[in-house]
């Protein structure tokens, strides 16, 4: 696919996705080399959002395959609508109905196309998002190799179906398990980290028009401080940060105070254990001090 780096930069900006230069470069390389893009990172860093943004940039429909444990070919590729086939057979038993041939039952009318087949059959270029691929197992990964390498699918009753337009493939992973070397080797790799304070402030200002300078700056510092605690399992995502700021604005807060941080903690930390750890090791007061720059202390552990 012919793209320019400047187009990627402009496109991401227009879509409101504020990214580091490394992200722009990696997306550019993946698109230019025609290889799938594998994005890894903690939950909430913006992996799925990047795929949606790329889809928006190129005006390509987004076809999403949400992976889960137990996902198999039938749910990812295609499945015969056997209930409908059985009904047709039952109807065919009636001597007044027309005679049904086997080939009638194995036609496109009875084929339920799942995301991978939809992406391959699409007339226009699509963005195929295989989300949270680390939730599947290795058998499914092996099956993906076949599809992603040639973009063809073999259906015994039909033959081989070739992709009309090779889709832009994006895989995301929360790194809950190590993906196989075979899958990684076929992809261009991007590790997305949580943004630093400056970038997070930019994101907040872009996504929440009208947010105060002080509030955005303090909130970004507060969240960075909370994320620095390694004992917290589920770190606040970018989305949760934005929700938190919106909640603070709803409460007419233009800066962080101890009381309001304690009251709204559940928006950032959605896990009881994480909240307990936060209260024991950090606390709302230290968060406010850090956010106001009164303390230079970085969280280094209990």
């Amino acid at each position: 696919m012919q793209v320019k780096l400047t187009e990627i930069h402009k496109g991401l900006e227009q879509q409101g996705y504020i990214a580091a230069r490394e992200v722009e470069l990696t997306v550019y390389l993946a698109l230019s080399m025609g290889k799938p893009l594998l994005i890894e990172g903690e939950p909430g860093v913006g992996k799925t959002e990047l795929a949606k943004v790329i889809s928006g940039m190129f005006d390509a429909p987004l076809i999403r395959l949400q992976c889960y444990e137990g996902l198999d070919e039938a749910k990812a590729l295609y499945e015969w609508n056997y209930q409908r086939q059985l009904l047709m057979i039952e109807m065919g038993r009636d001597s007044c109905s027309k005679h049904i041939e086997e080939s009638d039952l194995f036609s496109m009318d009875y084929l339920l196309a799942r995301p991978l087949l939809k992406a391959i059959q699409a007339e226009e270029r699509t963005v195929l998002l295989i989300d949270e691929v680390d939730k599947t197992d290795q058998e499914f990964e092996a099956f993906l190799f076949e599809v992603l390498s040639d973009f063809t699918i073999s259906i015994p009753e039909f033959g081989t179906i070739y992709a009309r337009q090779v889709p832009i493939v994006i895989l995301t992973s929360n790194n809950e398990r190590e993906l196989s070397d075979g899958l990684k080797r076929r992809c261009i790799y991007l590790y997305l980290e949580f943004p630093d304070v400056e970038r997070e402030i930019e994101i907040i200002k872009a996504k929440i028009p009208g947010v105060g300078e002080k509030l955005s700056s303090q909130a970004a510092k507060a969240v960075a401080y909370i994320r620095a605690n390694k004992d917290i399992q589920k770190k606040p995502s970018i989305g949760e940060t934005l929700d938190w700021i919106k909640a603070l604005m709803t409460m007419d807060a233009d800066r962080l105070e101890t009381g309001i941080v304690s009251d709204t903690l559940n928006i950032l930390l959605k896990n009881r254990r994480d909240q307990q750890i936060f209260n024991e090791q950090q606390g709302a007061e230290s968060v406010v001090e850090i956010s106001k720059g009164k303390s230079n202390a970085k969280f280094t552990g209990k």
Partner: protein
Amino acid sequence: MQNLLENNLIRFVHLLRRMGLNVGTGEVIDAFNAIELISPADKEAFKAALSSTLVKSKNERAIFNHSFNLFFSLPQVRKNLKKEWQKKKQLEQDGMERAETELCFQGESLNLSAEQKKVYSYLSAEQKQRVQNYIKKAEQGEKDQHNHKSLLETIVKSALSYYHRQVEDEFIHTLNTDDEELDSIAGAIESSRGAGQFSVMYEDMQKITESGLPQAKEVIRLMTRSLVKTISRRYHKSKRKRRLDLRRVIRGSIGCGGTFFKLKFKEKRVSKPRLLLLCDVSGSMVRYSEFVIEFIYGINSVLGRIETFIFADNLEQISHCFQSGLDFNVIMTDIINISQEWGGGTSLAQSLQTLRENYGDTYNSKTIALIVSDTCTTNLPQAEAEMKKFSRCVRDIIWLNPMPREKWEKAISVEVFLRYVRMFSCNTLADLERVVRKGLRL
């Protein structure tokens, strides 16, 4: 210019491989293709092009970043690194030559390995003097030279082994290639590993220094936490379709007039594996065994029963020590203090025999045995016979071998044991996590 770039890229890939990254030829080709799409003069773009094609995980990024910053630094920086490395190497060489002359018993040099001489060369003047004084005292004693010399060598080797951990931080590391510049960069990277500049995931567990231990323990804690979270979901009902359950399908179709509207499937019940852990705690294996035990107990909530044994000259059961609920470090300290096997020699034959005769009730045909050892043992034929008997009594034997894979071909013991076990190379924490997950099919 293009040739220079290609040549440098190949050398850089070589460096990454030596640092533990698994870079395949396909990825190297991708890297070359990626570089053609950007301007090599743009360092940020160049780094992104290499990073996106050669690096495939979060842990590898830290090693890559450090390697990239050193390898593609200014020529003067690399020149200085090389000079420094050459100076250190020369000093080390001189030190080892002095060890030859200083460690003599009645005019004959003690029979020490290159590694042991290296340790001696890094000792402080006071420590060296202590060793030399001991040798001098020994010279004044026994006249039976041969027996006393071997005894003295054993004592000196033990002392050097004791000092090893204290001084290994200062060792210069080398790739042993013909490329001195590459060696000097690798040396600089290895030196900074101990300073905690990046994760210890890819560092040989044996080489993790005292200063790197807290980081290693933190890595194990995070690894086991992530593994437990993933594995515990596997014991829930899965929607995965396996074999058709025809009986249930037919029974279900009765209500629909015999038409198979709903298909039912069945799958084998996943049960937690029962584990028997056999850890070699002879001299060189101690560090590996400690990490493996800590890792296995970190994931004990997703394993069935775990029976743990340590062995060197003989076997000792330590499973009961982990039931006290105390902190893991406290338990391990107690074990080390009480154990008679810790740091001894290795007799796998005797150990397996003791296991069979005294602890036969701790394993059965459903047990998976996990052995941590470098296969170096006395009485290999007897060890093979015992291993053969043992392999018939358990479901599977997974052997974690810290010996580098390239040495396996030359090791007869490896060839012997491979007939009965599944052996995996395991000398880093990353290897450990991968092998345990795959080996136990977690």
